[in-house]
């Protein structure tokens, strides 16, 4: 994806949420997207045609994150009601509820086989839940963080969490080690590069930081946007050529991965851009849309 191919205008506006949209995620093949927000609902969209497909309601408070299983059959969502909901996509029913977080749950992710869900909570912990058994108890609690865990990423063998205590911690299941990279700034959101070698961490000092995962080196810093108080998403484009991130002033920024220059920048929203998510081919920004 060259610079010219970077999205500049919105393809569709998906209206329906009442209140802020807190997260937007594409499914595996990029044909559908999910959004969740303060109106306690999760909505399934076809972004290409701009059609609202389904609404999932069960959360008692705002929904902070949602994730689709790789086979598109299940959803996992979490929110301010301290619960994690495991949904069946087709029927829209809650299959299981995972309770156990002591406070709000910030992020949630499926693992590769959709057998485990890992959630990151304000209670300074990561919790792993088993989707296969009927137990609603977490199978693992990782509470080495010193502050609220904002974001979680999973690889085949690792659990990576970014926390407000400024650390990005990688928990390698294979070797049983915890690797903590202290960035010195509260980490808002982390996202993996597509090749899995780097971690992009959005810090609250209005900087995106690119870390080399194997050595923990700081590879690059991306600045120019504003990110001081909101949880703003960041991600890499599908080719790993650019870094995308939202800004509190409503802009979406694109940086060149290597030289950290702002390649593109456009105003997408009138207020904070909460979520940016790249599907296979096109950009979608989940934002604060007020219908």
């Amino acid at each position, binding site marked *: 994806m060259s610079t010219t191919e970077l999205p500049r205008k919105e393809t569709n506006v998906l209206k329906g949420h009442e209140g802020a949209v807190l997260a937007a995620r594409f499914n595996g093949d990029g044909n559908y997207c999910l959004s969740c927000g303060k109106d306690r609902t999760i909505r399934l969209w076809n972004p290409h045609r701009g059609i609202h497909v389904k609404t999932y309601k069960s959360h008692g408070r705002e929904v902070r994150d949602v994730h689709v299983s790789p086979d598109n059959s299940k959803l996992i969502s979490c929110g301010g009601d301290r619960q994690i909901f495991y949904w069946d996509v087709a029927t829209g029913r809650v299959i299981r509820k995972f309770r156990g977080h002591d406070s709000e749950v910030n992020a949630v992710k499926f*693992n*590769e*086989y959709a*057998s*485990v869900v890992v959630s990151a909570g304000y209670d300074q912990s990561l919790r*792993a839940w*088993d989707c*296969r058994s009927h137990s609603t108890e977490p*199978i*693992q609690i*990782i509470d*080495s963080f010193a502050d609220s865990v904002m974001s979680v990423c999973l690889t*085949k*063998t690792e659990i990576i969490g970014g926390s407000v205590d*400024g650390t*990005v911690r990688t*928990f*390698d*299941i*294979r*070797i*049983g*080690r*915890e*690797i*903590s*990279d*202290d*960035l*010195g*700034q509260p980490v808002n959101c982390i996202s993996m590069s597509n090749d899995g070698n780097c971690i992009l961490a959005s810090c609250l000092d209005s900087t995106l*930081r690119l*870390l080399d995962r194997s*050595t*923990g*080196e*700081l590879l690059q810093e991306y600045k120019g946007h504003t990110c001081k108080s909101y949880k703003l998403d960041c991600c890499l484009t599908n080719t790993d050529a650019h870094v995308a991130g939202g800004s509190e002033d409503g802009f979406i920024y694109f940086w060149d991965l290597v030289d950290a220059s702002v390649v593109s920048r456009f105003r997408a929203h009138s207020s904070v851009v909460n979520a940016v998510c790249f599907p296979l081919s096109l950009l979608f920004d989940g934002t604060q849309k007020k219908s």
Partner: protein
Amino acid sequence: MDSDEEDYVFYGTPIEREEGITSRKKKAVAEASGQLRTLPSWKQEVRDEEGRRRFHGAFTGGYSAGYFNSVGSKEGWTPQSFVSSRKSRAEVRQQSIFNFLDEDEKAELDGQSLGTSSQFDTFGFTAAQLALKQAEKEQKQRPSAIPGPIPDEIILPATVSIGVKLLLKMGWRRGRSIKDSHADSLYNARREARKAFLAFSSDDASAQAAPSESIQGDLENYIEQPANDDVRSSQGTHVYTLTPKQDLHGLGFDPYKNAPEFRERKRSRISGNRDPEYRKAPSMKNNLFGFKSGKVAPGFGIGALEELDAEDEDVFASDYDFEETYVQEIDEPSTKLTVDSKRKLITNEQGVLPGFRIASKADYQPERFDPPLVPKDFEPHHKFPGPLETDFRVADAGPPEVSPPVDSNLRLLIDGVATLVARCGKLFEDLSREKNQSNPLFSFLRGGNGHDYYTRKLWEARLKRADQNKYQLDEKVSPSMQKLTAESRGHILGERPLERSFKDASSSVASSDSVHLQYNLSDTFTKPKSLSGLPEVEKPFNDDPAKQERFELFLKEKYQGGLRTTQFSGASHMSEAARACERLDFEAAAETIEKGKEGKESKMPAQHITDYLATGAMQFTSGGLQKAEDPHAEDSITKKLYPKREEYQWRPSPILCKRFDLIDPYMGKPPPAPRTRSKIDTLIFTPDSIKTKNIEETVTENRDSFATPQSDTQGKSKDVADKELEVEVEVENVERPVDLYKAIFSDDSDVEEDTTSNLNKAEHPEKKAEAANTALSRLMAGDFLESLGKELGLEVPPEPPYLKNKSVASTSEKEVNENSRYDKIQSIEDNHGIPYNQDMSQDGRHKKNELIHGTASKHGSIHSEIGSSENKNDLVNLEKNPQEDRKDKMRHRRLSSSLSSEDERSRRHSRRRRHRSSDSDSDSSSGGRHHSRSKSKRKKNSREKSTSSGTRHSKHHDRRSRDSPSRSRHGSAKEHTKAKREKH
């Protein structure tokens, strides 16, 4: 008849008579004749050749029917002793093949086991095994001091192998090497003597000619290589030394067969060669072990020191025997020195084969080259063509100051080269000039662009260095010969010399050395920068001379490097914090100055520096606490610090690994230790359990307090009736904690429900709050509560309220002992919100007044007894107030007659009472209503219990916060007085 037979001599075999044949034999014979075959199968019996019944023969080949063609006997395979009854269950008897074997077969089997006979048991393995078996047997018989089976690994019976036995017989003792240490020491002593003697006599050894020379010649044609004697016997181990065949004779051929005296000769030579020390110095050896000329007849190879050599050897290492007697000639040392050393040397050097002689004229001449001729003017020390110029004179007038070239790169280059040249001497300049002949960048070396600037820079750098070295050079006494000492190294590294050793002026380094070292070390160590005298601009603390002084000191410290003096941070009157602040200031100032310097040399234009410094100075003088670091510097620091990587151990749960389809890295390892909870955690989570215990305890206490008087006053007939009620009581017992929760937690609902207000009601929540408070405070230490209170932002009384309760109680204790006890009870009772006083008053009405006294004095004792039956309570109680408990136990000694039935009764009784009392507590008129309500509340409470502990916790704190110290004091005092009133 027998006597008759004795007299006769019989020949031949007598014919056996019918009667003489045993029935057994007869049968065997019959069998042999095939008589028995006619019998029906079940009557047939199998006999062995001796006529005994035997098995069917399937084991030994062939088959013959046993009992009904099945087994050998009627019983068949029935277990021999099957006993089964209720009391003694059948033991499982271990059957082995020996159970089914005849004696002779057993004997046969026994003989088949293989083992080393003790005669050949070199290492004692078999002996050890036998001893082990023996020990086991013995152990079974005698009662062992250590109960239970002792593992074999621990206790092994001592055995002695045959080898050890032999050695012992030979005089060897355990713990010693096989070589006799005594002999060793003797040997050492003698060797010393020999050495001394050699030193004495080696001078004239060559002068002595040996007449025996000619005779030796033939003898020594035999090749004899030194035998390997490195394998000295080490401490206590057997060493088996192989003596390789080293001569060229055929196997079994003994060249000395007819001339045994030569064997002796050879032996001496071998052993002579063996000694490594003498091998090294062959001439000496030859002196020693050569033949003696005078006394010994030529041809007899008896070494003078044979005996010593024998000691040298391992006893087992040599296959030579020691039977021969040697001539002892140690007392005549002069005879030993009669050997032609030259001759010996030749034979040793060239291993001439027997039957060959050394050619007088060799064909082969190794080519030899003459060593290269050293030129006459060669000096074995390298001298640099250029002068090192360390003793550069400062006084020299430097070249005029030149403005740096425009090209910053060039300027940097020039600077760098100048410093290097100053450091390493002119040589470096020459070298670089040669190297970079074609490089236009280095044209300044050859007088091109920037040459002036270079010279100036070089001069400056040299000046700097000269300053640095001057001191050093002054101290040099003999520069080239001195070795590098710690102090001189410290100098080179820029460390401050220690005061004590300062006077040692001789410590110094050769100038070239120092330069070299400095050059090498400059990479690894920070060089002391010579800040000789700060310019006026660089005095940021001008307005405060004292501070400026300290700053200068600080700078000196900083740039001189090395050990810091303790008396830094000058003013001793300053506080730690102030000192730290000042230190920060200084650091910042120094940094700015540094930067300013850098700027002067490289980046900033001159006027900017002063500007910068001025602002810096302003900053330093005005704001003491402000750091003058610019944001960029900070940024770079953070960049350096972060990201920081750390690694810890982390244990994924097995199921997580399973779900991730990975192998658990901690598989098979023990689970990690449970995490220790912090203080706060324990506070939050433990109260529920402890509290229930606490409450239970108080309840039992209550009950007990009334149990004793009852038992005293009422007849024992009641006990029977009470026992019937036991079951019911126990059921109630289970519910009790739930019920009691109400007392602590339901005051809110109480308040809501009790709309009918009376005097009691106003007091009620207060009391409950207090109850909760005491319950909580009993759990924790006072100081901890305080800290918690601070954490929660509550106002914390200087002294925890429960302490006051106690203190009040203790003061009252002085007046009336019963009352104090009473108070305590009350405080306990408050846990579940039952006002003891009213309770008492009611009971007091029913019972006699003295009862109270009895209760007060006795309740503890009974409680302690209950405690023994209900361990939990006891435990808790012990934790809570051990003192009281101790007292109670003392009383309990006197009152040990109380029985468990009494307990039960008392429990029941108090239960009854409890309801009543709770009624009376809240509202004496609405007893029935309350009762039902309490039941409903019980349910509620059970629900409440299931809610998270967090809410409960917070409730506690609410109560705590509401409970001001003054009130608690009041409350207890009030209650106290009330109790008094009611008693009378």
